[in-house]
């Protein structure tokens, strides 16, 4: 039985295979509409989320399966003090596969140790969010027709932004990837990623605090939101939340085939005037998220 806790759990070949299946689902949705007949997905969201939970639920429904679950810790037995392991063992009796989000880092790993069904990490605090990464990889593939030879700009909260951490880890496996890390000093990428992933794999990267200075060389611009829930100090959040706002003016020097991505939800880091620009891929990215989750559910349930 396989789980997906960290994007590193998947080999590059497995990621490529998931992307291949997702592409096939996009091309032939009818072929997959009954693949999960009589299967149940439990979505255990100990922390609020709209997009990820609905994406998982829509994915399972489009595979012909059913969905059970809860959408906040207060409506689960956690409110009574139940441990993650006990909740998972219980839910495993009702479902075939579990997607869980938890505010504590490492909670899905704890869940996977005792689980009798596959666990998908749907986000654990500021740590990992592997299905967002798979979404991002499918988006890059669909928009650029390749996953190698790319210069990727990551902008905003690179410290707490788990989507950024997983994406850096995953893309570092592909050939000739360069990163431009755009953030204020306080939100720079953690040392463990710089040492353990970028430097270890000899990946070329630069750190800067300016979008304008670096936008012309980018193939991908991945914007992120500064997340209030990751700050202990409201003052720091207010000071940093509007540090970057992508607008038409800043895009003037960008490549014609730049792909602008964002894991969403957006607050104001991308001006709405950018939404109609054909380079804005973030709403297409949402759609790709459902397809890659369909491919992942099939893989973990070992359904051909």
């Amino acid at each position, binding site marked *: 039985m396989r789980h997906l806790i960290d994007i590193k759990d998947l080999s590059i070949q497995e990621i490529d295979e998931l992307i291949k299946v997702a592409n096939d689902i996009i091309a032939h949705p009818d072929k997959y509409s009954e693949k999960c007949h009589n299967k149940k997905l439990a979505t255990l969201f100990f922390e609020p989320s709209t997009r990820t939970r609905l994406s998982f639920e829509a994915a399972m429904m489009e595979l012909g399966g059913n969905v059970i679950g809860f959408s906040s810790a207060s409506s689960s037995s956690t409110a009574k003090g139940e*441990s*993650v392991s006990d909740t998972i063992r219980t839910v495993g009796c009702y479902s075939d596969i579990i997607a869980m989000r*938890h*505010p*504590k*880092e*490492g*909670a899905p*790993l*704890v869940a996977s140790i005792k689980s009798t069904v596959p666990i998908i990490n749907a986000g*654990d*605090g*500021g*740590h990992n969010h592997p299905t967002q990464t798979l979404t991002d990889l499918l988006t890059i593939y669909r928009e650029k027709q390749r996953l190698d030879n790319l210069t990727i700009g990551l902008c905003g909260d690179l410290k707490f932004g788990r989507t950024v951490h997983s994406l850096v880890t995953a893309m570092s496996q592909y050939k000739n990837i360069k990163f431009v890390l755009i953030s204020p000093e306080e939100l720079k990428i953690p*040392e*463990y990623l710089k*040492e*353990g992933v970028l430097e270890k794999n000899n990946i070329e990267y630069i750190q800067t605090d300016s979008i304008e200075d670096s936008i012309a060389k980018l193939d991908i611009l991945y914007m992120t939101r500064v997340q209030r829930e990751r700050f202990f100090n409201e003052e720091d959040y207010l000071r940093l939340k509007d540090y970057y706002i992508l607008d038409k003016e800043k895009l003037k020097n960008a490549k014609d085939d730049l792909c602008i991505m964002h894991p969403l939800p957006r607050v104001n880091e991308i001006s709405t005037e950018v939404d109609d620009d054909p380079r804005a891929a973030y709403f297409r990215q949402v759609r790709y998220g459902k397809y890659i989750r369909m491919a992942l559910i099939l893989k973990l349930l070992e359904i051909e």
Partner: protein
Amino acid sequence: MNIDSIKNGIVIDHIKAKNGLEIFNALKLGELDCSVAIITNAKSKKMGRKDIIKIDKSIDLDLDILGYIDEDITINIIKDDIRVDKYHVEAPKEIVNIIKCKNPRCITSSEQELDQIFVLTDKENKKYRCKYCETLYNQN
């Protein structure tokens, strides 16, 4: 200064000076019912200064704790006044319930019955990360 030699027991040698007491506490040697000597700041040709621990009894040592605290130490096993074995330790790949994760966002901060597991992620610089949240353990 003279410390009697031991007839049957263990001599933990080549401990970095000042690490002796930490090892004494971590191995809970104060709870043994035999003589235990800690010699600190002993002269050493190889190290300048070193600590030594002598345990007047054969016991099972937790090599993970020793390897984590000081991987340069030497362990000598003494039987009938003769050294019958000598070996070195190395930094363990994984340590359980020796150090605690300090990340307030880690699952171990709210579920305290979980084992505190740390994984050696950088052997050269002896860096350990929490298995759950991957936070680097910082002794300070």
